[in-house]
């Protein structure tokens, strides 16, 4: 069945992020001057020190659930069959936070600060998106 949910829209700036994900690596830009690692990877200057010396650093893939919500309202027709679905705000071990969702986990067991690790969902042959599962 065709994948109907929104797809990543790579830009000239964040294309490597998506390409690394396709290879099942979670990488984000790290500033070579000050060490700051940030999300989203939509910048060519470090937002902390404004250096342009950025490198794509491989992350541990571990983090915790900073918070989560459960969507009951239908905002996207492509998510209608998933309602009620979870969106989790993940705090990565290296610091940055990103929106994602949780897999291999009942809604009833989700807690703030729950340790999680990345899993790679190959949604299409071109795109892989990061999701997270509890570390048991």
């Amino acid at each position, binding site marked *: 069945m065709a994948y109907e*949910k*929104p*797809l*990543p*829209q790579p830009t000239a700036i964040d294309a490597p992020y998506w390409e690394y994900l396709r290879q099942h690596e979670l990488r984000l830009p790290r500033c070579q001057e000050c060490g700051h690692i940030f*999300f*989203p990877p939509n910048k060519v200057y470090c937002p902390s020190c404004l250096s342009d010396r950025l490198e794509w650093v491989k992350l541990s893939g571990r983090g915790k659930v*900073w*918070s*989560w*919500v*459960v*969507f*009951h*309202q239908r*905002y*996207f*027709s492509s*998510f209608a069959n*998933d309602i*009620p*679905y979870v*969106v989790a*705000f993940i705090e990565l071990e290296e610091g940055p*936070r*990103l*929106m*994602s*969702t949780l897999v291999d986990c009942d809604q009833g067991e989700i*807690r*703030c*600060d729950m340790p999680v690790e990345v899993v790679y969902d190959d949604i299409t042959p071109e795109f892989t*998106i990061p*999701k997270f599962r509890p570390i048991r």
Partner: protein
Amino acid sequence: MAQMTLYDFKDKVCFVGVGDTNYGALYRTKDPRRNQYTLGVEAFKAALDDAGLNKDEIDGLILVRIPSYQLFADMVGLRYLRAANTFRGEGRMSALAVQYAAMLICSGLCSTVAVVYGNDGRSVGATYGGEGEGSSPYDVLYGMTSPGAAVAHMWRRYMHEYGAREEHLAAVATSNRRHAGLNPKAVFRDPLTLETYLTSRYIAAPLRLYDYCLINDGAVALILTGAERARDLRKPPVYLTATATCTDLTFFYTVDDFFRDGVRRCAEAVFGASGLTHKDIQVCQIYDNFTPTVIFGLEGASFCKYGEGFQFVQNGRISLGGELPVNTSGGHTSESYMQGFGLHAENIRQLRGEAGDRQVPNCQVAMYICPAPICAAHIMTRR
């Protein structure tokens, strides 16, 4: 010239006119001719009448949400203005638009400024989330959208950090509704019981239907001028005694301090500049696009400590007759979602003694607080 401070700004500018629309009546009817512009003109006309001003005495026009200042200026026949501009249709802009008007007046660029806000969200089916609503391309992959869900993330985290429970929010929703019951222009006036609140559907859990602002049609116009000119006009002037902004602009609407640190900076600035204290505040309007922001705003402005807001709002403390009446016209969840402008109008009416059945007795000092990516606070007073 010595550096000016917020103190130099004190009481230099007044609100002299306020006009709005009958939100309840608009909610129950449809009119194909109704749009942001026509609604804005209705409010503008009402504000002129309220101030006792002729439209040609307006020399500055600031629009919010109404996209084109040019179209609007044409509609109201204002040609030789000394300032005109449009602010985005975001709730955080109401205080900023007022500040801009005040700056125009203080600097001498303008004498009398109209700030006009119009919203036809119900007529055009605004959703504030979903397809084509400008959600982050990184978030939509997971179906994440809407400021309400961003606030739901913060409320979940708040509950985790401080031991609050979902039912603690009901105090905010039911207080707003109680106040709306005393406001003939409010959209929803029927009493809201705790049971109805708790059995209402989730939108983005942990937030429920009654935690969300309305989507309705309406408009608000505010007219400001210098304090000297204000004394000669129809209504008693309401002074913009102090005002301050502090941004918290990050990629996500969800922030880890729940906008409290930004609000704290604003509150310290306006209390410092005005010489007033928390005990002087008789009524407070807090930008409640979603009910948790009332708790975040009270904590940020130090009406209580961080983590105590969910207890502070219980037992009628923020209702009329309580220690600190908040959102006395019904707020964004019950009166009308005018993105902060209805809250400004309410403070003006409370200070003038025009709030009818919901009047705070002898109201002389009012506060406005906006916990949002651009936090803001005003202290407004009457003499």
